[in-house]
């Protein structure tokens, strides 16, 4: 009997604690915003906008697409230029080689061959 009443008392005490705790939510009366709330907010928005202007531009999909297209065009152009240079270089090298070779065979050391080519068989 005594244990039952102790249990009941304990239960009532816990219930009271729960009620008081839940009451906190009802007691949370509405509070008004700080009088500088709006001023602070507008200042924050201004600084945020200034800071994020560059970032926002980078974050825009059309800007990113434009950047990608520009990069692609730049890559293509540089590839085209380097290919052009390579082909003109190889042409120059071939021309130079031919020139050198003709110079080489017409050099003084090979004069004999020139002479032999102009040798007249019919003459005695």
């Amino acid at each position: 009997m005594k244990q039952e009443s102790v249990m009941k008392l304990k239960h009532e005490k816990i219930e009271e604690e729960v009620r008081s705790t839940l009451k906190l939510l009802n007691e949370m009366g509405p509070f008004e915003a700080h009088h500088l709330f709006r001023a602070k907010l507008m200042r924050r928005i201004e600084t945020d906008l200034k800071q994020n202007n560059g970032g926002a531009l980078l974050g825009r999909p059309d800007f990113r697409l434009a950047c990608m297209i520009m990069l692609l065009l730049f890559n293509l152009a540089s590839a085209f230029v380097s290919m052009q240079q390579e082909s003109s270089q190889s042409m120059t090298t071939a021309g130079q080689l031919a020139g050198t070779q003709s110079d080489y065979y017409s050099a003084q050391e090979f004069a004999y061959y020139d002479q032999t080519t102009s040798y007249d068989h019919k003459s005695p």
Partner: protein
Amino acid sequence: MTSRDEMFRNIVAEHQELVLNTCYRFVFNREDAEDLAQEVFVEVFRSFDQFREESKLSTWIYRIAVTKSLDHLRRVKRKKRFSSLKRVLGLADAADNIAAPSMNNPAEELASSERAKVLQDALDTLPESQKIAFLLSKQDGYSNQEIADILNTSLSAVESLVHRAKKNLYNKLYASYKKH
């Protein structure tokens, strides 16, 4: 001042109290609630062009307020976990242990802050939808229909969520006080 700015100022003036008090219900701290309310309106300003009139403007704003408050609570939880890990590793920062400034009556403050902590812990264990529905139902200014719109659910679902939240919260608080 542009017409957009003018319109934004009107929106802030109209909704700031409810946004502020909604955030306060979630975070139990006035300063954090003010910071969060500012974040809410910054977000509103930034995303205003993306607002499609599928819902009411107020519903959209309060949904942002709820999301920001829940994000804040998640951040706090993560920070708590991290600081307890730091404590275990012996890397705790002394500044973490400095108590917040107290009110006029220290004993009363301590009791109410302990109570608030018990309540917040119990609320944290509730499923998110129950917690949102319950806290918004406790706030003046929200009809059940508005809560349903914020949660993107039906009116009957909100009533059920609030009912279950009350029951769960009572049980959790009872268990918590029984342990002590």
